[in-house]
């Protein structure tokens, strides 16, 4: 374990290397000292020879005393390390002793100078060869011993240091390493500690600081992980519409968030190539110099919108925000991009524009509807009166009937405009759709040619929806009329079906805006000429029509779309040219059956009559006149006024004479509601019918205050008018009788 530690290895190698170098240095120094000592010792021979031997040898040589020379040389040779001696005389003689055995030696020359009679003669040279072999051997042995001793000492010291290092550091480092290796990000962290005895430690040391730092780092990591988790959650929440990407200054993508592949429908491999084509090679890319706005060293974010195709053929809109990342020299390193899928926003923008257009139309329509309805009311009223008077004149009667039909169509047209522009009152109640379907089939069958077969397929158990029956009528009528037009030349089959549909979480992705739950599926299908593909997206636009001017106004499907949206439903259209068109409508089923509140479709057409006195107020003189005539024809006594102030004055003068007030809502000088308030001050319990050319949703407060009993939208048919008057008057009569009986009792 000790030797597997890299630090231990490095430590022991370092110690050994350093010790080896030191040992070498010390040994070298030691040898150097020994060598000098030996050299000094050898040098001492020089002095010895000079002082002791040289004179006698010189004398012997002077005298050519071979024996003496031999004796002297042999004697000299007894000195340690003296290997070889040779005397060479100037006259060519030589005497030697010993032999040159050594490989390494030191040669000393001694000139032999003989002095006689104050004259010196150099008679030769004594050459002493001092063997250094033994000296070197001694030095070598000494070096080896020193090295060996130091090596042993070094190894022992290194081993000891290693053990100490292992005890104090390495084993703890292993513990730290193992612990760090076993950390699993995301799992719960445990406090880390080292197994070490504190008796050796008087205070905290570096390892304690490491442990403390690790634990501190753990805490920070834990916090960072929490932050990352939060961030991931945030990203996950955003990932349906937000994507992140990065690419370098050469346009190579380095990161694209995975959500982008899912949304665009490309594989991991394709998405990079695809993005290069659409995000880098487009003219808005930040890589294009023209799009790089600089603010000194900082480059500004660059945003643009781009439409890019999905893999399935559809396209989506992305709002790209690219941020250039610059180096210290201001050069572009990479680009960080944030893409926001704004496809839905784009659709909403289209819808918003459409809504604004509709609002403008509505405002316009609302503005003219009042006056137009008054005009229609006059036409319809007089037509009906004339028809009543010309029953015995068939031709005139028929012609008046045509006038009445045209006026009714005009009234319906105004109603459609008001419906589409949401200017009409929508009163939703739980209603059964099946009877309306049957009624519509019955009604439409008469108006369609015999070449068109009408089928109904009712597969639902529950057909109750919260809806306005009039608008449901309108919806079905519009769709069926359109289907009839599509098949009028070739004939075909018109199928109206009802189904119960359960929308799951997956299903609602196809119907944005709808909620999970039970729906009624209403299908109107024809086998006509179908709708060209290029028109499909525009069929719900108002005034978009492919029909002749006489056949359509371009408002039918727009009204249908508006009604469906108003009832929190969805409409889809499927069409193939030559094969027919299917309109599929989902309407949410009512959560409960409101038995009492459930309204059936229209009641049978009955015209009740009466003889009560009615105060009729309408600023439109003609309308006031015709309504007066209609009401008088129904038996009522009518006081008609076109000025609300005159009407109020007249009522104050004879308040007890009037049984009912019918007043227009919008009048110059005094609005209808103000007139009602004033009249109610005089006679609190007088019933009131408010007529209006615009839609007027009965105010709860108004009802609570008892101001208005019913609202009628002009033009009002005789049937509706008579039924409404009768219903109110009868109600008040019963209530009065009850009050009187209660009061007398």
């Amino acid at each position, binding site marked *: 374990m000790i030797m597997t530690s890299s630090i231990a290895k490095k430590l022991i190698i370092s110690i050994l290397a350093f010790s080896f170098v030191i040992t070498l240095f010390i040994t070298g120094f030691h040898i150097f000292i020994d060598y000098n000592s030996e050299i000094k010792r050898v040098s001492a021979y020089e002095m010895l020879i000079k002082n002791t031997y040289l004179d006698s040898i010189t004398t012997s040589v*002077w*005298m*050519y*005393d071979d*024996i*003496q020379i031999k004796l002297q040389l042999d004697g000299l040779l007894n000195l340690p390390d003296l290997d070889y001696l040779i005397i060479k005389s*100037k*006259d*060519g*003689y030589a005497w030697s002793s010993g032999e040159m055995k050594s490989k390494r030696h030191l040669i000393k020359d001694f000139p032999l100078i003989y002095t006689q009679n104050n004259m010196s003669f150099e*008679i030769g040279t004594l050459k002493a060869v001092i063997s250094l072999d033994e000296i070197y051997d001694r030095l070598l042995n000494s070096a080896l011993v020193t090295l060996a001793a130091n090596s042993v000492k070094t190894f022992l010291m290194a081993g000891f240091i290693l053990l100490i290092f292992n005890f104090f550091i390495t084993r703890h480092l292993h513990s730290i390493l193992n612990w760090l290796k076993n950390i699993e990000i995301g799992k719960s962290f445990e406090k880390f500690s080292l197994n070490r005895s504190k008796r050796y430690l008087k205070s905290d040391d570096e390892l304690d600081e490491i442990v403390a730092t690790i634990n501190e780092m753990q805490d920070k990591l834990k916090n960072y992980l929490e932050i990352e988790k939060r961030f991931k959650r945030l990203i996950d929440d955003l990932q349906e519409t937000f994507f992140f990407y990065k690419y370098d200054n050469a346009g190579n993508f380095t990161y694209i968030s995975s959500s982008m592949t899912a949304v665009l429908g490309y594989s991991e491999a394709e998405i990079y190539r695809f993005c290069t084509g659409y995000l880098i090679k487009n003219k808005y890319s930040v890589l294009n110099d023209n799009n790089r706005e600089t603010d000194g060293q900082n480059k500004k974010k660059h945003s643009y919108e781009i439409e890019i195709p999905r893999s399935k053929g559809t396209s989506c809109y992305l709002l790209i925000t690219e941020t250039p990342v610059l180096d210290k020299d201001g050069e572009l390193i990479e680009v960080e991009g944030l893409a926001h899928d704004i496809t839905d926003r784009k659709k909403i923008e289209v819808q918003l524009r459409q809504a604004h257009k509709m609002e403008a139309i509505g405002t316009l329509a609302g503005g003219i509807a009042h006056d137009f309805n008054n005009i229609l009311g006059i036409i319809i009223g007089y037509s009906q009166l004339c028809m009543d008077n010309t029953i015995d004149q068939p031709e005139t009667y028929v012609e008046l009937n045509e006038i009445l039909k045209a006026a009714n169509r005009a009234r319906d047209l105004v109603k459609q405009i008001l419906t589409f522009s949401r200017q009409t009152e929508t009163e939703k109640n739980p209603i059964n759709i099946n009877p309306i379907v049957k009624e519509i089939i019955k009604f439409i069958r008469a108006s369609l040619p015999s070449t068109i077969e009408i089928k109904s397929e009712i597969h639902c158990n529950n057909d109750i929806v919260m809806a306005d029956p009039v608008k449901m009528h309108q919806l079905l009528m519009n769709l069926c009329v359109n289907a009839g037009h599509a098949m009028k030349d070739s004939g075909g089959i018109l199928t109206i079906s009802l189904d119960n549909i359960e929308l799951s979480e997956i299903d609602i992705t196809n119907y944005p805006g709808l909620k999970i739950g039970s729906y009624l599926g209403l299908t109107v299908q024809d086998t006509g000429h179908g709708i060209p593909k290029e028109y499909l997206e525009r069929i719900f636009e108002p005034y978009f029509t492919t029909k002749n001017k006489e056949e359509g106004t371009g408002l039918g499907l727009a009204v249908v779309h508006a009604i469906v949206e108003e009832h929190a439903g969805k409409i889809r259209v499927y069409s193939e040219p030559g094969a027919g068109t299917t309109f599929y409508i989902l309407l949410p089923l009512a959560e409960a059956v409101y038995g009492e509140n459930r309204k059936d479709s229209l009641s049978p057409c009955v015209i009740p009559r009466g003889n009560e006195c009615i105060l009729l107020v309408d600023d439109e003189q003609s309308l006031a006149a015709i309504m007066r005539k209609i009401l008088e024809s129904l038996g009522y006594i009518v006081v008609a006024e076109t000025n609300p102030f005159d009407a109020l004055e007249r009522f104050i003068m004879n308040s007890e004479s009037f049984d009912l007030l019918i007043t227009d809502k919008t009048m110059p000088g005094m609005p209808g509601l103000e007139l009602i308030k004033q009249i109610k001050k005089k006679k609190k319990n007088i019933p009131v019918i408010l007529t209006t050319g615009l839609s007027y949703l009965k105010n709860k407060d108004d009802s609570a205050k008892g101001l208005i009993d019913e609202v009628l939208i002009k033009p009002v048919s005789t049937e509706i008018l008579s039924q409404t008057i009768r219903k109110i008057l009868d109600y008040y009569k019963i209530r009065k009788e009850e009050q009187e009986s209660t009061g007398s009792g």
Partner: protein
Amino acid sequence: MKEIFMLIVCLSFFLFPVNTAPAFCNQLNFNQKNITISAIENDYIHSLIKDIVRTAYKRLGIKVNFFELPARRSLEWANIGRTDADLARIDNTETKYSNLIKIPVPLLTIKGVVFTKNITRDVHKWEDLSGLSIGIRSGIRYSVIRIEGFNRIIAKDLFHLFSLLSRDRIDVAVADYDMGRYKIAKHFHDSGIHIIGKPLSSRHLYHYIHKKNKNISKKLELVLRDMSKSGEMDIFREKAAMEAMP
């Protein structure tokens, strides 16, 4: 005619002895003014010869300086030309010292005799010394050569030699007859050292010059030969011997 010529020469020689040498030298174009002759230091024999040689050179117009050295060194230096000549050596010295030219006029005859203190052996030849410890003087070539293989001790000089003998360090000492007698008379007259047997050798001594001085060899030979014939040499030797004797 011939006799007349010889007479004139002889007369000239005798009548103008001092002046002949320079004239002779000049005739020979001899330009040496000084010459150094190595001689054995403290050597009795050489002291007997010095005046002879000095006189001979003088007659050649050359002034002689004697440089006293140990016996062998004297010879060696003469051979290597460090001195110009060796005063006197035995015959055949030139065979070993090839740079030396012998002037073939014997200057002196030395007799090698055996001195002893206690030995009573009758000695006639070198082999009779067998078994004895023999002392000889360093540099005396004939004795060194002849006793090779014997038990010998070489003394640095004659005094040393006789000192060894007087202290019984050696049995016998081989030395020149004249010189030995001189030394004993001077330093060891009470030591009991005496001569036994007959001379072991008798050798002439010759003057040797270095070959660089070859040009004077013939003239020197003539002068020396003349001195020998005239008995002048004997006069110089006897005079020297007389002066040397204690």
